[in-house]
């Protein structure tokens, strides 16, 4: 049995507004194995990006991590002091945030930005060695060396994203988190960038958390999938099971709403709106929109429980979803 690289337990993150706290992440737990590709999917506002930011402790006020543990190779990230945290970021745990390519410094050349990332974590390198490492990183992502001397605006979107990947892996992290890596890119470029990401991840032997809302990409790339809804996890399953035998009603509706070129069919819409995270409904957060809602769902929130090997669901339709915690 693989040691888990990441173990998240009961993560809770809230944003404190004058109207009250918004429970962006409300009790999220999951594990990521060594070398595994783990997908985190959900619609906008479900809390997937917040989860990623929380793991790197990048949540700013009025947001706050209220509770939970996140163990990276056994070390609780939330218990680390400032110095250790800084050392952990980039070198053991890396994030490519949403819109990363737009955050590249427009007035610095690529190699300077990559050098910054490396120097911030390791003792000052010899310029030649630094350049060597930068060129190696660029090679890994399939970019030519001359990119190092270019400015961000001279590169295309796909190239910028690959630079971001190169920067994120420059210190060989154990876990890489990519948040909406390709949503602004064209289809062909998207394929090339995701291809690069996978190649890099496999070569490093790192684990990957792929966050996004594109179910097609998740199907193509990840080993296991977690579906989030309104700040909680609805289901975690192996990717094939998730698509062929989803258990949670939300997952089922989500899968059948995805357009595909495999067949022309009527796409399933999910009626209603996601719940307010400020005043969430009692019981299961999905019950107002669920075609299978029972009395119990209105009152009691289901817990995430393992109903088959490796398949976790939070739904009252399935036995064993009360009390059992992952």
């Amino acid at each position, binding site marked *: 049995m693989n040691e888990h690289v990441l173990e998240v337990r009961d993560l809770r993150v809230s*944003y*404190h*507004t*004058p109207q009250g706290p918004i429970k962006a992440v409300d009790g999220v737990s999951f594990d990521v194995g060594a070398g595994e590709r783990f997908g985190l999917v959900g619609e906008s506002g479900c809390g997937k990006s917040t989860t990623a930011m929380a793991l790197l402790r990048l949540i700013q006020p*009025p947001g706050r991590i209220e509770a939970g543990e996140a163990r990276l190779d056994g070390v609780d990230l939330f218990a680390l002091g400032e110095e250790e945290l800084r050392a952990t970021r980039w070198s053991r745990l890396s994030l490519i945030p949403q819109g990363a390519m737009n955050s590249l410094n427009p007035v610095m050349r690529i190699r300077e930005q990559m050098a910054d990332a490396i120097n911030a974590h390791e003792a000052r390198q010899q310029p030649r060695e630094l350049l060597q490492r930068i060129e190696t990183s660029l090679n890994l992502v399939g970019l030519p060396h001359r990119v190092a001397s270019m400015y961000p605006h001279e590169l295309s979107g796909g190239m910028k994203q690959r630079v971001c990947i190169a920067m994120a892996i420059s210190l060989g992290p154990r876990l890489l988190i990519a948040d909406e890596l390709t949503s602004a890119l064209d289809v062909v470029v998207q394929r090339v960038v995701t291809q690069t990401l996978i190649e890099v991840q496999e070569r490093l032997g790192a684990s990957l958390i792929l966050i996004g809302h594109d179910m097609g990409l998740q199907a193509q790339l990840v080993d296991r999938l977690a579906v989030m809804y309104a700040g909680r996890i609805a289901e975690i399953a192996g990717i094939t099971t998730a698509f062929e035998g989803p258990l949670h009603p939300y997952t089922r509706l989500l899968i059948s709403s995805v357009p595909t070129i495999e067949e022309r069919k009527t796409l399933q819409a999910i009626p209603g709106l996601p719940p307010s995270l400020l005043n969430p409904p009692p019981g299961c957060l999905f019950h107002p929109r669920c075609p299978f809602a029972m009395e119990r769902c209105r009152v009691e929130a289901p817990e995430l429980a393992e109903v088959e090997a490796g398949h976790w669901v939070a739904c009252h339709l399935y036995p064993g979803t009360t009390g059992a915690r992952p």
Partner: protein
Amino acid sequence: MLFRNRKFLIGFIIIAILVTVAIVSNTLTEPALRRTGSFLPKLPPASGWPLGTDSLGRSVAIQMSEAILKSLLVGLVAATLGTFLGAVIGFTAGYFGGVVDAFLRMLIDVFLAVPSLLFLILIASLVKGVGVLAMAVIIGMFAWASPARQVRAQVLSLKERPFVELARLSGMSGLEIVFRELMPNMLQWLGANFVNAFIAAILAEAGLSLLGLGPQRDMTLGMMIYWALSYGAILQNLWWWWLTPVFGLICLFLSLYLLHLGLDEVSNPRLAGRV
């Protein structure tokens, strides 16, 4: 809704109080009391003359009631002129583009580059015998360039927005779009700009008056300070004569600034510390 903002409310109250007191005391004062020699000169504040008297035997309190209103008038006229002119020019340049825009843009740049205070001094010194309104107009002449540039920039950016395209698709004409779609979005900004111009105009007037270039025959806060200094009020320790108008200016400035901050916060809730 605007009045629920604390800063705006406080600012508004201060100004309201000043204006009301000034108007009331103005109407209640007999014209005879305004003339020089109506009181004994250089008297410190006492019950008959609550803010003291100056070297010419006039009540400082009576002067203040007139001066506050006159200063506010200068601010009002100059700000209105500047903002209105600026808005019209900005809209025209932004919406119509082309040659019109090129010309107006040049005009705006010229007026912006010009050191307005120096020019104000120059003009004020050339024009003999300015009255309050003339002052206001002169100051207003230099206040339109900044709003014009910003309005133009706003219009240029709003022009490309999808809701403007939608308006075109709905059959609206260019002019209709400017007035019904673009203008309302600018009102808040124009309001803030107006308050800014107001403050700047009052201070400009005070500055010019201090230099002796003010409306000699009228009483504004700036002129009061000017007279006080000319008659050596500081040296003779007639503190009530020069301190009062200075304090008045500070009050006006603070209250208008609070109004401005309040307006800013209402239009941009993030400034108020809310999410």
